[in-house]
């Protein structure tokens, strides 16, 4: 049978399998890193071996990103095919994505609102995690992600929010396919949400409104947010969640920060942390890793107000990597940059001698059906 086009359901199914296998590659890389790091072995041979292992890990990450890029491509193809096949050509995505306004019927009607300020600051300091002051909503997952992004790349956040005339803000977020969706925030925003340290409206306040719109138009969407969802919606890039033994160690986190990747750590699942400086069921921006002293610094999106009890929660906590792992259950790592931009990976695949590399090679080269590889047939 010969026809043009595609079975879009199969494309989407294939995309999900690509994503699942990408996750497997990430897990393999993390396992390789942690296992190698745990071996007591010193000397030149050990250093060489570790360097070679590190190189393979880096290639696994590259491959993971390539597979996620393929998955995104498949999703886009499916969406375009559906649009073409729909009556009257359907509605497109991307630049043509619908722009919704927070003044639309049924949006954000279950929260108190206040007039929106003009000229909300967007300088680096205003976007830093230390300038966050969470409000009455359980949206630490969103705010800690915002803080992590503001810490790593404030320019990125500035690019996502455009201020128009008379206090109208347009926020670009991304749907589950990584396609941009824009939200017009005008006239009013949530009254008792996040602010800056002095109570002023910030871009975090704007993002809360956009998140509400992005998730059905109900402020209840601000209660209980997974950092991976927030990072992906804010960046359009896949975020990786690590728990248990898969969590990155000190060196891995340091490298990720060096690479400009936003990191969020959370205590969900640890309701009452032993360390009273840390809040349970909460999310924090990871802002620094000190290789020399073996410490990790986290910032609480609550802000500094009321943090003068030395036996209670603190805004900024520097702790040993051991304390970090005891208190924080999950580490989430995002990416900033154009989706699918994985750089020049030529030559990477040919260096793999193991089964994973060969299998991926075959799929990337087109010598094996993606479906066969995914299904193991």
């Amino acid at each position: 049978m010969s026809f043009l086009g595609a079975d879009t359901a199969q494309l989407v199914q294939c995309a999900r399998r690509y994503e699942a296998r990408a996750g497997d590659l990430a897990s393999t890389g993390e396992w390789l890193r942690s296992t190698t790091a745990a071996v007591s072995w010193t000397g030149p041979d050990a250093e060489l071996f570790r360097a070679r292992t590190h190189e393979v890990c880096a290639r696994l990450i590259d491959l993971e990103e390539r597979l996620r890029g393929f998955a995104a491509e498949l999703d886009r193809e499916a969406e375009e095919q559906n649009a073409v096949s729909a009556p009257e050509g359907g509605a497109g995505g991307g630049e043509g994505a619908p722009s919704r306004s927070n003044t639309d019927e049924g949006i954000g009607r279950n929260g108190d609102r206040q007039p929106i300020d003009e000229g909300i600051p967007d300088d680096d300091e205003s976007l830093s995690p230390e300038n966050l002051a969470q409000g009455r909503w359980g949206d630490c997952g969103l705010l800690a992600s915002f803080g992590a992004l503001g810490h790593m790349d404030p320019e990125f956040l500035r690019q996502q929010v455009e201020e128009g005339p008379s206090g109208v803000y347009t926020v670009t977020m991304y749907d589950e396919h990584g396609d941009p969706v824009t939200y017009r925030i005008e006239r009013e925003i949530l009254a008792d949400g996040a602010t800056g340290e002095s109570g002023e409206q910030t871009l975090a306040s704007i993002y809360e409104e956009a998140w509400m719109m992005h998730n059905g138009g109900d402020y209840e969407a601000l209660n209980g947010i997974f950092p991976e969802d927030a990072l992906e919606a804010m960046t359009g890039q896949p975020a990786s969640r690590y728990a248990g033994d898969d969590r990155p160690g000190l060196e891995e986190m340091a490298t990720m920060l060096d690479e400009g990747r936003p990191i969020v750590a959370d205590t969900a699942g640890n309701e009452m942390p032993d360390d009273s400086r840390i809040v349970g069921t909460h999310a924090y921006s990871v802002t620094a890793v000190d290789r020399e002293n073996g410490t990790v610094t986290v910032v609480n999106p609550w802000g500094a107000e009321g943090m003068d009890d030395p036996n209670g929660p603190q805004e900024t906590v520097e702790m040993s990597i051991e304390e970090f792992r005891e208190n924080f259950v999950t580490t989430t790592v995002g990416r900033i940059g154009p989706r699918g931009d994985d750089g020049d990976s030529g030559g990477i695949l040919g260096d793999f001698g193991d089964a994973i590399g060969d299998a991926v090679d075959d799929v990337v080269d087109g010598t094996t059906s993606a479906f066969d590889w995914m299904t193991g047939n």
Partner: protein
Amino acid sequence: MSHEEIQAFPLASRRRWNGALISIAGAKSGPDEPSRARLQISTGDGAQTVTLAEGESVDIPGVGTIRLDGVDTEPPGERPRPAPGAGQVRLGLTPGDHGTS
């Protein structure tokens, strides 16, 4: 005479009440143990962190009485853990003589 008002606080959230900033620093509920919540309460006189069992209360001078009415934690859904900030603590708030809620 002041009356108690029950307010629901999302986990790990903060809210001003009667001149105090109340933060939910931790909360636990389970079938085998009474619910507990760790609260950070900040006023102009400074901050204190208290842990209350269900039914227990703390008096904050110049502010009022805060009683732990209950804890509703969120069970994991499709993912292996609850989301940060999911679940809530119910506090019974009775304003003190000098405050207004």
